[in-house]
């Protein structure tokens, strides 16, 4: 797909079988904290509600801004008019929560299978509650989305609603923790891009306006549909490696700067100090990680850029890099840096992948929560993949933390196992 990328032709193992991954609803866990005036109403089953409270490993009890309208027998048997039921639940919810400015009706596996038209519901409710509340819909169902693709579906639903603007501007795509977002704005301002629009915005009123003079960069690799939706609005993508580690962050900033006619020397000059800090912070973890092998199970689509960071900046040896979906248009620059060493796999047959893992016996395995303890019990050190999504890991100041996330399980193992060096 991406011409000129050395790894474009690298063979990819594509598998079909049991997928040990979350569905897109899981994205709601961070989206609802990031978008502070949004409520996410899943129209689904008890399983969806149970997933949402279990997936994060803990429950977030600070009055959650998400909930599940649980379908009951009467909804399925056609005894109740599902559209009228949605209207009733939404009216009740919005009357109780006057702080809500945007409401997402989120489709699930059961609502998709019974073909419940949430787009129609959103349109009707949007007209009813405008201008106080805007109502949108997207699907986070497991039959259509994998884990982080829920955020992609959400942002892609927002894209057509963004106001138009002819302004020449930078838009950064993907939910980042507020502290990281602020660091990014600081770096870009020093480089000479003082105004940065971000999607998702913290509040509905802060939505970016977009148009043909908008250039956008991705902060997260799983936003393919959103990227396409923005391109349909005339905005143009800035291809870059993802801002993980010193090298990734510098390359990302340099690509963004180039798109705005700012020379690489300027980036180099203003980032000298944070780059040195990042290298220093990484070097502490590198002592543990250098020469160690690592195996990624598919999870968040962050796997390729993370493998690139660990291989090039921490000296690790990726054995297999599994990802739920390999978007070469987005990951091209990272794949090029990663090179042809590791086995790439897309999709999953978890049993076969476990067979390969046991044959490889890597020093560290990145996997989901369902697999981690059983693999530890087999003597394999693991890193929970979900922590990579819930922890601030982007840009220079987090580069050391990111490396540390991988070093900690190995250091812990060394502490608890006499005779094993980290």
């Amino acid at each position, binding site marked *: 797909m991406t011409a000129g990328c050395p790894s474009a032709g690298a063979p990819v193992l594509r598998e079909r*079988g*049991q*997928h*040990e*991954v*979350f*569905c897109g*609803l*899981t994205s709601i866990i961070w989206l609802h904290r990031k978008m502070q005036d949004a409520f996410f*109403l899943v*129209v689904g*089953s*008890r*399983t969806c*509600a*149970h*997933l949402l*409270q*279990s*997936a994060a*490993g*803990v*429950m977030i*009890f600070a009055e*959650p801004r998400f*909930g*599940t*309208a*649980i*379908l*009951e*027998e009467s*909804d*399925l048997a056609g005894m*109740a008019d599902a559209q009228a*039921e*949605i209207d*009733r*639940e939404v009216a*009740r*919810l919005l009357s109780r929560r006057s702080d809500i400015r945007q409401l997402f009706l989120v489709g699930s*596996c*059961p609502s*998709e*299978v*019974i073909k419940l038209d949430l787009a129609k519901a959103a349109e009707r409710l949007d007209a009813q509650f405008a201008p106080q509340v805007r109502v949108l819909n997207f699907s986070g*169902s*497991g*039959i*259509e989305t*994998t884990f982080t693709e829920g955020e992609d579906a959400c942002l892609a639903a927002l894209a057509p609603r963004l106001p138009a603007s002819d302004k020449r501007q930078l838009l950064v795509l993907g939910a980042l923790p507020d502290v990281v977002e602020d660091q990014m704005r600081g770096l870009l301002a020093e480089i000479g891009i003082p105004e940065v629009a971000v999607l998702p915005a913290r509040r509905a009123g802060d939505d970016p306006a977009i148009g043909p003079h908008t250039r956008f960069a991705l902060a997260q690799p799983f936003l393919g549909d959103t990227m396409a939706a923005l391109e349909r609005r005339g905005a143009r993508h800035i291809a870059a490696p993802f801002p993980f580690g010193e090298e990734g962050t510098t390359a990302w900033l340099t690509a963004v700067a180039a798109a705005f006619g700012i020379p690489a020397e300027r980036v180099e000059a203003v980032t000298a100090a944070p780059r040195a800090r990042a290298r220093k912070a990484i070097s502490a973890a590198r002592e543990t990680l250098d020469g160690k092998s690592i195996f990624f199970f598919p999870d968040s689509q962050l796997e390729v850029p993370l493998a690139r960071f660990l291989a090039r900046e921490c000296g690790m040896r990726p054995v297999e890099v599994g990802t739920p979906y390999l978007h070469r248009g987005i990951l091209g620059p990272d794949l090029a840096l990663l090179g042809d060493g590791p086995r790439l796999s897309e999709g999953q047959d978890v049993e076969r992948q476990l067979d390969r893992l046991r044959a490889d016996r890597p020093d560290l395995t990145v996997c*989901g*929560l*369902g*697999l*981690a*303890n*059983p693999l*530890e*019990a087999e003597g394999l050190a693991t890193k929970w993949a979900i922590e990579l999504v819930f922890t601030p890991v982007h840009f220079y100041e987090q580069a050391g933390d990111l490396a540390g996330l991988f070093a900690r399980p190995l250091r812990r193992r060394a502490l608890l196992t006499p005779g094993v060096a980290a």
Partner: protein
Amino acid sequence: MKLAVWTYEGPPHVGAMRVATAMRDVHYVLHAPQGDTYADLLFTMIERRDHRPPVTYTTFQARDLGADTAALFKTACKAAYDRFRPEALIVGASCTAELIQDDPGGLAEALDLPVPVIPLELPSYQRKENFGADETFFRIVKRLAQPMERSARPTANLVGPTALGFRHRDDIAEVTALLDEMGIAVNVVAPYGASPDDIARLGAAHFNVLMYPETAEAACRWMEKALGQPYTRTVPIGVGATRDFVAEAARLAGVAPKLDTARLRLPWYSASVDSTYLTGKRVFIFGDGTHAIAAARIATEEMGFEVVGLGCYNREMARPVRAAAKALGLEALITDDYLDVERAIEEAAPELILGTQMERHIGKRLGIGCAVISAPVHVQDFPARYAPQMGIEGANVIFDTWVHPLVMGLEEHLLAMFRDDFEFHDAAGPSHHGHKAAAAPAAAEAPVAAPAVTEPAANDNGGKVIWLAEAEAELRKVPFFVRAKARRNTEAYAAARGQARIDVETLYEAKAHYAR
């Protein structure tokens, strides 16, 4: 449709997983979309199991729906059998697969596998996790258990413990010891640790101990009818219930009742003078029906508490919970809506909550201590140490667990005495909990600055009662753990007398009126 924020129970197929995961040599093939595999982490993370649950998910996707999901099920089922070689196979559908009506039972039967295939029909849009566990275990027992000769010596089966159960692991050990003392051996524990072969020999026992009605009542009823095995009705949680259980088990086994109480400490700890301060502590109890009923009995008969609220989230247990509440002069709260429970607790203003992890969070929010007595629970309620709820040690564990959230006896008096001290004020919390004692908020020292009257409180007559500023200030001098009670009592006292305003006099008149 019903809006849910948090759920007490998962869907029924999670109940089926609790049974399958507890057992050995069975495998569960679940027709389910991508994403339903999240349920594995309940067992591997919350319970810290060192093996994956024995579950294969078909993980169908949108593109499969137009094609052949039935073929996908058959492939997954065959592959699972070939890889895991279980002695029995359970097959079923999750909520989404139920809608596409592929008939996993029929499909699996058609594969002609050389092991028993047990199909499950779990109505995902009507029932929940406990039903799923109960129904799954019943189907397994019905299919595999055989009538057979009773064992020569008196034996019992321990029935009901599952994976992800609240202290099931340790309850098994405790109940085994209770029976052993009377010369009753355990024939089979199921589903926890049982293989299909073990299920087949359930019929050798003289009777069944139904440990958890939530997960095994249907199986016990069937075994009573089909295998002629009576089962116990008493769940041995608490001292009184343990004694009753011993008597019941002895009767069913035809042996003399016997209970070694050498290690039993709850009655003495409760009677010792440091526990005087526990007298009449107001507790709110909510959990699964079995644990809630047991807790209500312990609270009133063994701890000397006053139960101000009692309820359960599993409707299947509504009847006995209603009866237990009625005996205490209460109306039972039967709901699975977490917000209803929060409202009821706020309304009752208890000094202690005995609940699930949901109530632990409610307590945190309302500033009320909470001890966990029932599932659903989180990782910290699967302790490394031996911590049963049943039998002698269970009673000891319960005493410690329930007292822990409260301030200690003498400490309570000191707090009352020095409550105006800037460091040792009552909002600092119990000294053994490790919170950093915050300095008393300055606002509390300046009640004169407060508005003349506070928010009118609604009373039972629908009228409003107004607190005058001095009365409000006086109320603030009452230690925090009884302040809510004092407020309620005073308002009820004023309302009963048709008083619209509460002054300091009213406060102390009410105090005298409710003196105990």
